[in-house]
């Protein structure tokens, strides 16, 4: 009996269990309520989309023609305002012929930030790299060295100012925050009280009042004759403000360290600072990376407030570019959308990155 084995022909995959149609059925037309929602939302989209496209693309003016923009007003967007004004919006009042300097400086700074996000670069010499980045940034922006003409800080503006304020205040606030957080958890009552008062006082008031203080009242606080650049004062204000919030985040991490770790360190005879440096902080800081990133994002957004104390960062530079120009002033909304896109790009990138870091951390935890 030569019975050869003939396999049964494979059955086709059930049509309704996989693929596009099943996804649609499950996610858009699950039951009558879901279907109704889908239909309504699609109808709304179809109703709105042509108008949006007409305004933003088909009827829009892209060239820097004020007359054409004026004619298209109400029916189409005037992106020409960006073609015309982007230099002032991005670089503020920085002298026109020197604008390559803030350009390069911002690129260097952003490159430094991007590099610091890559795991391979998390080495001790990253700190040296940052010293270099900051040196290049300030040399380019301030001038006065290597034959660059000096530029006063009150002419700084736009994106370089935004990026610089955010980066520097994060750098300065972080060590302060760690110290304050440790102080708040200290068992020395006087130090603890000082730290608590600082944190609660700062967290209880809006940033804008801190900035008002830094820009209007600071001269009153200093001995007569001392003048400190308003940029520095505002930077100090943002730093002190950010540090209080960061300290609370770090404290969250400190509280999550099991007591056994501290006791073990004591048993080994480590001193307070050795314990904190080698045992507590490495664990605590790794734990709070996601909330720290969120905090960085909000510091980046908060730099927009310095426009209220008359520094022309991105938001302020926009007012600078348009408020005094009768021809282009009516198209402010398009310019707002432009800087909205810039802020969004930065913040969205940071929040995506934070998600990635979170994933990396959870990998190490769930071995």
């Amino acid at each position: 009996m030569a019975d050869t084995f003939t396999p049964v022909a494979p059955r086709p995959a059930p049509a309704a269990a996989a693929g596009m149609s099943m996804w649609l059925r499950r996610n858009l037309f699950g039951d009558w309520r879901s279907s109704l929602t889908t239909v309504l939302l699609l109808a709304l989209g179809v109703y709105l989309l042509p108008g949006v496209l007409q305004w933003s693309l088909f009827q829009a003016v892209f060239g820097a023609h004020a007359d054409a923009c004026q004619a298209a007003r109400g029916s189409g967007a005037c992106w020409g305002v960006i073609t015309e004004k982007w230099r002032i919006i991005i670089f503020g009042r920085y002298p026109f012929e020197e604008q390559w300097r803030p350009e390069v400086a911002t690129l260097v700074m952003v490159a430094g930030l991007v590099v610091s996000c890559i795991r391979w670069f998390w080495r001790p010499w990253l700190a040296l790299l940052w010293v270099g980045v900051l040196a290049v940034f300030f040399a380019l922006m301030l001038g006065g060295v290597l034959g660059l003409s000096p530029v006063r800080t009150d002419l700084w503006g736009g994106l370089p100012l935004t990026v610089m304020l955010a980066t520097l205040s994060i750098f300065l606030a972080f060590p302060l925050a760690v110290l304050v957080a440790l102080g708040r958890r200290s068992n020395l009552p006087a130090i603890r009280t000082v730290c608590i008062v600082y944190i609660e006082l700062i967290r209880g008031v809006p940033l804008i009042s801190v900035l008002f203080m830094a820009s209007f009242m600071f001269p009153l606080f200093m001995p007569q004759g001392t003048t400190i650049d308003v940029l520095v004062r505002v930077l100090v204000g943002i730093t002190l403000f950010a540090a209080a919030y960061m300290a609370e985040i770090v404290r969250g991490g400190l509280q999550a360290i099991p007591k056994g770790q501290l006791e073990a360190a004591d048993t080994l005879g480590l001193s307070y600072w050795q314990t904190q440096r080698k045992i507590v902080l490495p664990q605590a800081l790794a734990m709070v990376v996601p909330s720290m990133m969120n905090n960085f994002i909000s510091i980046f957004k908060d730099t927009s407030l310095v426009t209220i104390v008359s520094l022309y960062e991105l938001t302020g530079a926009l007012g600078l570019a348009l408020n005094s120009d009768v021809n282009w002033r009516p198209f402010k909304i398009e310019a707002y959308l432009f800087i909205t896109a810039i802020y969004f790009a930065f913040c969205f990138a940071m929040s995506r990155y934070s998600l990635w870091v979170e994933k990396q951390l959870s990998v190490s935890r769930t071995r």
Partner: protein
Amino acid sequence: MGVSARAPSKKPIEWSWRSRVVRGWVYQLLALGVVIAGVWFLAHNTQENMRTRGIQSGFDFLGSAAGFDIGETTFVAYDPSESYGKALWVGVLNTLRVAVIGIVLTTILGVLVGVGRFSRNALVRGLCYAYVEVFRNVPILLQLLMWYLLFVDVLPPTQSAWKLGGMFFLSKGGLSLPAPVWAAGHAWMLLGAIVGILVAARYRAGLQREFERTGQDRNRWAVPLAMVLGGAVVGCAAGGAPREWSMPEQLAFMVDGGMSATPEFLAVLIGLVLYTGAFVAEVVRGGIQSVSLGQTEAASALGLSRRQMMKLVILPQAMRVIIPPLTNQYLNLTKNSSLAVAIGYPDVVSISNTTLNQSGRAVECIAVIMVVYLSTSLSTSALMNWYNKRVAIKER
């Protein structure tokens, strides 16, 4: 002879650098010294500067006439001949108005969107996600400026306001809507509603007891709602049933009558609600996600319906994760309302600013701002801490 318990020996303090206690004292004294010296230095400089520049100090200026007008007031009437103190009080009330209404709306929006992220419909999920990402990643100041610009630029002038059924008017001048004319009957109505709420609370407590005793879960909303509404209706009838409504009317150059909200107020409110709502949505989503999947599975194994699962299993556990960050968002909303100064809504910061420019009392005006925000912050967090204690799950 038994071993007597050793009395805790009181070690004499060893006066050397190697003693932790001594070092602790030294550090603390040093820290205090630095702080006190710093504060003294600043205070001394300030006094010195004020003397040489001839700046007066003290809070006596609060009594003198303000002399500036305030665009809108909450509950109290104000005119420029009244004092700075009154003006600042108007500012505080304006801040509180925007904060309280904002917190209520933000909570509703945030919870809806946060739950929407778990919708079974992909479009709803996508929209909620897009909303959260867009509004959370753009600075609130920029959003406020844009809303204000939309109000003053895009909306029609008051003469040709957008109308809805002759009752709602929306224009550059703001939003007008019908309002009941206040009469004694409304006080009765309120009283009736309060009595209704008290009775309903007792009724619901009874239902809860019955549920815990028998496991019979009955609808806890229909009857209590009827009680509250009934109370209100009875109160209204008892008070003579006031039915007069003030309707907004289109006049030549303005819309008059009814309730109205200025474009500044609307811009601040909409901006704050949409911005904070995105954060609240994330908080709610995080809270719901923090409840482990096993809980949901156990609940469905017990045969609970989706609604019961949400109410009895997921939400009580999610709440303790949600409340603390939610408190922070409420505080953020209140503090962010200070940005109203950028678009001219007369909140306490904006009025303090005007006062500062007129009277030159910088220290005092900033102190007023700080005291107002500190006290709102501290009282909000006290309230939320109390609520947090109530919803916290008692573990053993």
